[in-house]
């Protein structure tokens, strides 16, 4: 086998090894981080609820406008 092929194989082993080691460390780090944050007091609520409420606000606004228009035109 040529020298170039040997270098290529070496690079492959080194590269895949590094990628796996790094991402394994990252997986462990992420698990630990999430666990710590969930244990920490005063965990803020997920933001998704706020979006729902603003949507309803808009609807009530629309309803109020519709009622006003109807009142004006109904006269």
């Amino acid at each position, binding site marked *: 086998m040529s020298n170039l092929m040997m270098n290529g194989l070496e*690079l492959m082993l080194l590269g895949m090894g590094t990628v796996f*080691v790094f991402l394994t460390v990252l997986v462990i780090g992420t698990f630990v981080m999430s666990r710590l944050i969930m244990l920490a007091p005063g965990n*803020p609520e997920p933001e998704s609820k706020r979006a729902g409420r603003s949507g309803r606000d808009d609807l009530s606004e629309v309803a109020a406008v519709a009622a006003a228009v109807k009142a004006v035109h109904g006269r």
Partner: protein
Amino acid sequence: MDKLNLLLSQSGFANLTIGPLSMIVVGLVLIFLAIRKGFEPLLLLPIGFGAILVNIPEAGMYAAPVYDAQGHLVAAGGLLYYVYHIGIESGVFPLLIFMGVGAMTDFGPMLANPKTLFLGAAAQFGIFGTIIGAVWMSSMGWMDFSLTDAAAIGIIGGADGPTSIFIASRLAPELLGAIAVAAYSYMALVPLIQPPIMRLLTTKKERAITMTQLRVVSKREKIIFPLLVLVLVALFLPSATPLLGMFCFGNLMRESGVVDRLSDTAQNALMNTVTIFLGLAVGSKLSAEAFLNVETLGILLLGLGAFCVGTMTGLLMAKLMNIFSKTPINPLIGSAGVSAVPMAARVSNKVGLEANNQNFLLMHAMGPNVAGVIGSAVAAGVLLAYLG
């Protein structure tokens, strides 16, 4: 009459040779693919146009500036010369794009299921398998690729445009044009390349596996994650800092929620501006002597191989994880590990829906998909550390 002769001698008719003419045709083909077929138009259109501009004879779009002996500027260089040297040779443009990609990335699905990072790691085998393929072609005497050339070609398998351009500009600038064209073309072709491989390597029963709903990820986790990545990069692989550092910076701007203006600029205005110049500058590397040779053919073949191998190893890794995991893992999400955000994740979702029309894999596939971005940046860091 002399004046007319002079004008004629500088015209396109007098100077156009077969090489630049073929490259203008290549540029037109890229523009056609972008407009008619919708192949990554944001990149292929500027690349195609850049290729045309740089190949117009006597236009001097890529002319180097001329200085006299005292260092005074005699003639300024061409636009594309400056754009290339300022933006790509320096590595600035791909890194700015990476910052924008970071600002557009939601790590939520990955944080909800961090195991999917392994899929993003497995799919990087496409990069290293292709390096072996390239050096094998050289050792057979078909091509003339050095190890650094092979590494720059292999990074196409990362399915990540800015990473490919960054690595190619560092390791093999003369191959940059072909590598960028291959990377973006195959990213556009992901919906055609991946499904047959996905169906080949999985059974119908595996494709129909439904995955458990992802948990809600808190804002704090999303803010701390980019900082965690940055610390790990600094500790383990500083050579990946340019790419991952900018990526984490963009992501932190997004998730912190206090600099929405900056995050918005990074995602939109700045990203678009840089994309225009990046495309033109990549196109300017599509000169006849650099593109019309057998190496380009090799790069296109190897790039396709890189995508296929990455898809395969991602799928196989997901199958393996499904055996050992407590919660079921649909092997189809493995193919999203090649990055190509968000196309590869959409492909996983689509193929999953074919097997089970109630099975929505998109959010599950986004985990390995963004993990693939980190994975290919890490692989890029290894290549730079080893060869740079």
